[in-house]
């Protein structure tokens, strides 16, 4: 069964100059990601990788075509239902971590519990998530007191709080050194082995190597990467 389906996905930006032609970001993307797959999408800056991730996460619905995620047609969902989908079934990880500076690591992990109907047994799960990413002893630390790698691991723990079946990651190792990045990639491998579906946008080969499938977004279309495909 597919976790993600993109059907003839097109997105255009308005012309940069008056009278110019609209810019095509995607020219009819088709993609199916099966449940439990770990797919990496590579591409140059500005190729639309992050935008694609936002579309899959329902954060951006300004496109033509269809995006189906976990059986839901995103364009048809109300704001509340879309929020509920993100809340319970999709985890997000960002390049710049996006932690709230006023909250402790534990409180940041608990952020999804603040919204909607909350997360069942959230406090216990949050501690488990922190333990899983190796930060159980940093629960009371503020983000400013954590290293870049630690912050990203807190962000991953936050994404895992609801135990979502789908994890979307946007350049998750982009701001980390090689050694710290390896730790994050190891964690992704572990989640993949446990059956989680991962869609990771990256321009780092070491991340792509961990994926079960690698695609390249180039000139508005997705191409399989023959160098790395199936290397995981």
């Amino acid at each position, binding site marked *: 069964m597919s976790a993600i389906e993109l059907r003839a996905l097109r997105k255009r930006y308005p012309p940069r100059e008056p009278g110019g032609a609209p810019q095509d970001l995607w020219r009819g993307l088709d993609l199916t990601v099966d449940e439990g797959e770990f797919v990496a999408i590579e591409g140059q800056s500005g190729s639309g990788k*992050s*935008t694609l991730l*936002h579309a899959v*996460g329902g*954060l*951006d619905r300004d496109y033509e075509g269809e995006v189906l995620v976990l059986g839901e047609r995103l364009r048809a969902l109300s*704001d*509340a239902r879309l*929020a*509920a989908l*993100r*809340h*319970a079934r999709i985890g*997000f990880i*960002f390049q710049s971590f*996006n932690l*709230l*500076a*006023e*909250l402790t690591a534990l*409180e940041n992990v608990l*952020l*999804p*519990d*603040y*919204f*909607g109907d*909350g997360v069942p047994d959230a406090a216990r799960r949050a501690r488990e998530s922190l333990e899983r990413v190796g930060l159980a002893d940093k629960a009371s630390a503020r983000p400013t007191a954590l290293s870049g790698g630690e912050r990203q691991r807190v962000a991953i723990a*936050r994404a895992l709080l*609801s135990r979502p079946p789908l994890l979307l990651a946007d350049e998750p190792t982009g701001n980390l050194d090689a050694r710290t990045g390896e730790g994050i990639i190891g964690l992704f491998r572990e989640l993949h082995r446990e059956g989680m579906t991962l869609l990771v946008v990256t321009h780092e080969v070491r991340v792509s190597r961990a994926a079960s499938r690698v695609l390249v977004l180039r000139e508005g279309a997705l191409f399989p990467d023959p160098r790395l495909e199936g290397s995981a």
Partner: protein
Amino acid sequence: MRPARLWKLANANLSRELGALAVSAGGVALGIGCLVFFLALGRGVQRVVRDVFPVSARELEVVVPQVGIGSLFGDVRLDDAAVARLRQIPGVAEAFPRVALRVPAVTRYNGPFFGREIRMGLEVVGVGIPSELIGADARLPFVDPGEGGPIPVVVNRRLLEIYNKVFAPQRGLPTLTDSMLVGFEFPIELGRSYVAEKTLAGAYAARLRLAGFSDRAPIAGLSMPLQAVRRINARFGQDTGGYSSVLLRAQRSEQVGEIASAVKRMGLDLDESERNRALQIGAAVELVTLALSLLAALITALAAVNIAQAFHAAVRERTREIGVMRAVGATRVDVATLILAEAAVTGIFGGALGVLLARVGGLLVDRLARTGLPQFPFKPETFFDFRPTHVALGILIAVVASLAGAFFPARAAAALDPARALSEG
């Protein structure tokens, strides 16, 4: 979004923006402080006006019209029959006839006066009233003692205030209380006037005994038992069998209008001079209070504009954070609710601070008035009347103003495109 979680997030955001919050809350506090201060001042001054010009909403003063067809023909009289008819008017609970002392009278007192020697001479204006009108205010029997006995008199309490605050300090006389004066006797010469040609034949000496002080007694003159005044008037051939006026007391204040109409249909008139004076002063105080409250409302509105600016800036700064919240499951309503909750907290703090400022301001003004202003009649202990409703109203308006200020920023935050927020923030 659950309230405890909402509070936690709002609190975290507010603590981050403590400086901006203090400015916003300070603006609200200033507006609300002024509002509560002026409202309490208005109520306090109204209370003073009511003390100086006590007007019952249930009472009417009935008099014979000075010029009227009825009075020309002599068929409009305030006699016992008229009083009986007035009592029959629907809604009238009680009727108290009054009769003026129609002969001149003077008092001359040379002697000790609470530790001082005084020499005093006054023309006396007297009015006869039924004892039921003053009730327990008369602390000695308020009945006509007949010829030879001291006539009990009751004085309006405001006269004692004027004596204590104006007359006594100027003349170096002692300050007096009700208890000190009750039972005090002084002479009166009935039928005599300091204007020689007004003195009547048969003028005679009598004594007056102060029986008490009452707000119910007319302010001009001494109130004596009705029968005593009628007896004195009759002795000088001045008793017409009629009354000078009749005080009507309605069962309920809403019935006063209908009673007034019925009185006028009887060809009688109403003396509303004191009521009108009190109403005019009251209206002037209301007007000033309203104007000052509008000024305070304007300050509060400006504070709301300041809040709008502060929250607009906060939303701009927190664009990425809002994007993250949306990504982890916040709805548009959650985002708007969070901003409005922060505004409500700002309003509560601002409102509470404003009420506190108003209270402190009131205490300072009262202190200044006590030490800086000279004594004057009816000078109150406090010029303010702070009420729990002022606190509630102040905080409510502060919250409403803050919510109004944060409304558009909250709407803008809710409308943020989460993808763009994450990219641009």
